């Protein structure tokens, strides 16, 4: 046996992995080779030191606790976990879940967009229908009586805002209650010389203003006015308490806004 061959045998001798005959053979070699004897001694020490050094390495208590707890989870729960894991492993499931989550989060916004924004914009349509004579209007000669009836129609929850537009030669001629976007809206029609003015009142907040509406803050009255339009029909919205008022007319936007700023009450 030469020294080169002896190296692996030395290793195996240290690990007690030799047969009796092999052990005698390498021991014979070591007895006659001081160099291999030193190698044997050093390798033995390396192993011994390593054993000592590693013996103090133990599993952290937190890890032990975590694994112990996971092992004592009820089987049903563990199965549930496994199923969730398996489900998440399906390639398309994560994007699909992400989209579903987004829809869920933005649902109120989308819903509001479809519903409430519709209230403000729908007033424009309703006004156009009234002006075009597509809505049958019950003539009301007594404004006070009309107001009483309208309040009654909405269960006395709120009152229509009445404006004296006689300067413009406009008078309230009719009124009705319409359900727009799931909400009861009092519609009052002012007619006379010039274009019609329709006033819509309903319970709401300033978030009912359409997204594209232009906001104007009246310093003196401390009121936000929202101006929006569709084709040649203009609208101005403002809030008084919980009541939203939208005035709609074909009169120029600036004129309509000035009118509303003049007539609106102090907040």
């Amino acid at each position: 046996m030469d020294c080169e061959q002896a190296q692996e045998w030395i290793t195996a001798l240290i690990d007690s992995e030799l047969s009796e005959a092999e052990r005698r053979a390498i021991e014979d070699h070591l007895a006659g080779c001081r160099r291999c004897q030193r190698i044997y001694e050093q390798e033995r020490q390396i192993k011994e030191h390593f054993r000592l050094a590693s013996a103090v390495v133990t599993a952290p208590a937190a890890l032990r606790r975590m694994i112990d707890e996971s092992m004592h989870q009820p089987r049903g729960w563990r199965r549930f976990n496994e199923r969730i894991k398996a489900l998440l492993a399906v390639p398309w499931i994560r994007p699909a879940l992400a989209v579903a989550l987004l829809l869920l989060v933005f649902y109120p916004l989308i819903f509001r967009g479809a519903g409430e924004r519709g209230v403000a914009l729908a007033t424009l349509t309703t006004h156009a229908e009234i002006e075009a004579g597509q809505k049958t209007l019950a003539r009301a000669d007594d404004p006070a009586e009309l107001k009483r009836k309208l309040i009654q129609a909405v269960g006395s929850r709120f009152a229509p805002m009445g404006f004296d537009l006689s300067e413009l030669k406009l008078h309230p001629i009719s009124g009705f209650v319409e359900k727009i976007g799931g909400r009861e809206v009092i519609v009052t029609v002012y007619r006379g010389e010039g274009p019609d003015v329709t006033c819509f009142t309903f319970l709401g907040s300033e978030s009912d203003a359409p997204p594209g509406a232009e906001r104007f803050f009246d310093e003196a009255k401390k009121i936000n006015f929202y101006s929006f339009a569709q084709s040649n029909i203009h609208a101005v919205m403002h809030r008084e308490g919980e009541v939203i008022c939208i005035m709609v007319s074909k009169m120029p936007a600036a004129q309509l806004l000035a009118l509303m700023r003049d007539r609106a009450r102090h907040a």
Partner: protein
Amino acid sequence: MDSGIALHYNATVVTLRNAKELERERFGSEIMTHLDHLYRVAYYLVKNDSEAQDCVQETCARALGAQEQFAPGTNLKAWLTKILYNFFYDFYARNKRTVAAADLSESAGNKGDLFDTLPAPSPGPETQMLARELGVRIEAALKKIPDEFRAPIVLVDMGDFTYAEAAEILACPIGTVRSRLSRGRKLLQEILTGYVLQFGTEP
């Protein structure tokens, strides 16, 4: 009559389930007795604490999930270690570039003849301290040698596995375990030469 049969059937199912639960509990407890060993092996294989913890957690989860694949009465410690090693190999070792063995020696430049100095045993009061320091150095040295040499050392020297068990865990022939051990210990010796010399000359 019908409900009687149903009741009896349900009771049997419950009993069977409880037996399975119990078996599982027992298996879990048995795994827990090898936790220090698993952590130690993982710690020296992956080279840091958090990855070692991940390895051990994954190993335990896989072992529990594969309980029926374990033949009772055989070596659970080796079985668990094989699961751990496979996980380590798949996630940490496979894509890693191994360091060329030639660049490993810490004292490559000024290395004397290692074989001329025989480290003497040091039974003095400093032994403990020296052992601790040596532990740190061994750990550092181990981190420098390639996985293929480190794994058999970790398994045999520290895991107390036989060559046959280590070969089974590493999925290689026994002869390979022996030659890699031999080569690995030589590499460690080379890296540790400076320190071993110092250690050896303590009076």
